[in-house]
């Protein structure tokens, strides 16, 4: 079984790095970690980078997960190949671009581009945000799925993900104590549905709501509260239509051995217990 330790980074293609940089610093509030020839690296916590904009097609979206060591990486590669997934072994140059020691790339059953990485770089210098959004770190992603039941099997049986809760057929899955690191979302094609950063307090969620509204950043859902994880949230749209989320107060699963996933009905109150309705962001269809 592939042992995912944590989500590590997201790489997004963008035709306009300048707009992406403006949004990431002036609106989202990340710190510029550095620039490559065609790459913009952004920090959100103690890691050297957690988001990378790369000049290119916005449909190129990759999520990286950390695995324990190079032996686990080799095991993962053979597991995936046995199951018929084409596995790309990252070159030294490609690994350097990702600030990791080694990695492999493959596609999940829906076709999402996933990378497994070993020893992603940390930074000795503490995180210092470009605006006071209160970000404490990159935390999870929403991942498109053309068949949530099939993909749940992939993430929970081939990988070590566990279902924390379900809304209809949509599983919220954890790879560590945090309620969820991967949320599958039914969609017609592959892609990252949203990128989550945690913030310090619910004050930060509300402050950003008014801040982003004033700057005419489209708020697509919230401020609200998920009854599943307990998190207070705000979803808004960035460059190339990518949705970003701030949230705070994601529960931790206390007892790994005895936790049973709860089933929530597929209805608006299962997504927000405060009563906010998504606008300009499709709720996943059951």
């Amino acid at each position: 079984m592939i042992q995912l330790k944590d989500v590590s980074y997201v790489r997004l293609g963008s035709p306009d790095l300048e707009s992406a940089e403006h949004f990431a610093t002036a609106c989202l509030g990340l710190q510029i970690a550095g620039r490559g020839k065609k790459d913009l690296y952004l920090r959100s916590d103690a890691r050297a980078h957690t988001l990378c904009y790369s000049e290119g097609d916005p449909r190129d979206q990759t999520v990286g997960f950390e695995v324990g060591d190079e032996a686990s990486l080799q095991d993962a590669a053979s597991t995936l190949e046995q199951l018929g997934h084409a596995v790309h072994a990252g070159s030294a140059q490609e690994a350097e671009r990702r600030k990791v020691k080694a990695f492999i790339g493959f596609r999940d059953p829906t076709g999402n581009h996933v990378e497994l990485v070993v020893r992603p770089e940390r930074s000795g210098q503490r995180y210092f945000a470009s605006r006071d959004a209160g970000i404490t770190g990159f935390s999870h992603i929403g991942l498109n799925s053309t068949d949530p039941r099939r993909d749940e099997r992939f993430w929970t049986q081939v990988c070590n993900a566990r279902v924390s809760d379900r809304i209809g057929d949509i599983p919220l899955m954890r790879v560590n104590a945090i309620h969820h690191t991967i949320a599958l979302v039914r969609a017609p094609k592959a892609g990252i549905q949203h990128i989550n950063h945690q913030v310090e307090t619910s004050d930060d969620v509300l402050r950003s709501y008014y801040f982003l509204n004033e700057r005419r950043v489209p708020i697509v859902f919230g401020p609200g509260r998920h009854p599943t994880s307990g998190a207070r949230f705000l979803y808004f749209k960035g460059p190339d239509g990518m949705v970003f989320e701030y949230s705070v107060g994601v529960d931790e699963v206390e007892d790994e051995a005895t936790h049973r996933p709860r089933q929530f009905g597929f209805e608006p109150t299962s997504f927000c217990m405060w009563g906010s309705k998504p606008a300009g962001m499709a709720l996943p269809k059951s």
Partner: protein
Amino acid sequence: MNNGSATPLIASVCYVRVAVSEPNASARFVSDIFGLQRVADQDGEIAFRSDSRFRTVSLGRDSADGASIGIEVWDDKALEQIGGRLRELGFAVKEATTSECQRRYVQSALLTEDASGNRIDLVVRPTQSGRRYFPTRDAGIVAFHGVGLRTTDSNRDLAFWKALGAEVSDWVGDIAYLRIDGLHHRVALYPSTRNGLLYAAFEVEALDQVMQNSYFMQESQIKIVQGPGREAASRQIFLHVEGPDGLIFSYVNGMAELGEKPRLARQFPLTATSLCDWGSESKDVPELSARD
């Protein structure tokens, strides 16, 4: 606040009596929309509960004795003491008649006015209820919390409230937050061109209920005057909503507890960030707006 004595002079803000043009229309807002429990209808006054007290809000027609704020006084001795102090300061103080006391659901009272002309009832033994509070909808209201009052004469009004034993916790411009118990404030005085109740505030369980009520009001097409927001000085989360006749009712939660120790009042500038830390603004109510 106790001025050296073992007990304070006043204990709480215990009710608001509001004069409106259409009591029945306003009553529907207060019970069906805002979420208080309608309990009685006596002498043309409709009474509502928000907690263990028999009533904390009354709606009546605009008449001579139609509107007032109830301040619960510790006992008759304290009532006498406050009455003496106010008379010394030149405020008119009148002993309430039996029928005036009945209409207020209290045992004894002094009826007075601050310098702006806000009618204040100083009351002893307001009526409690033996039955628990059971509202019409799940707005999460826990208790009547306090009031915002308009003032046209803030210096004289401050002297009035200090005679009752209140202290200024903080200033935002010339807005004065007044403390009468361990909480940051129960009464706030807002400089204005007129007198009257600015808002009546009701504490809810948590941030969840402030936000739920915010979406409920949007869906019910009720005007949100300001919020959801958070007062910088008191740390209180608030949502001000408007019913018929411009009546503003507020859901609040999370006010700072200061305790009994003396504390120097802090001065905040009259800016939007002092009135709301999150960034909400009031467009139409000048008393709640920064004038910068």
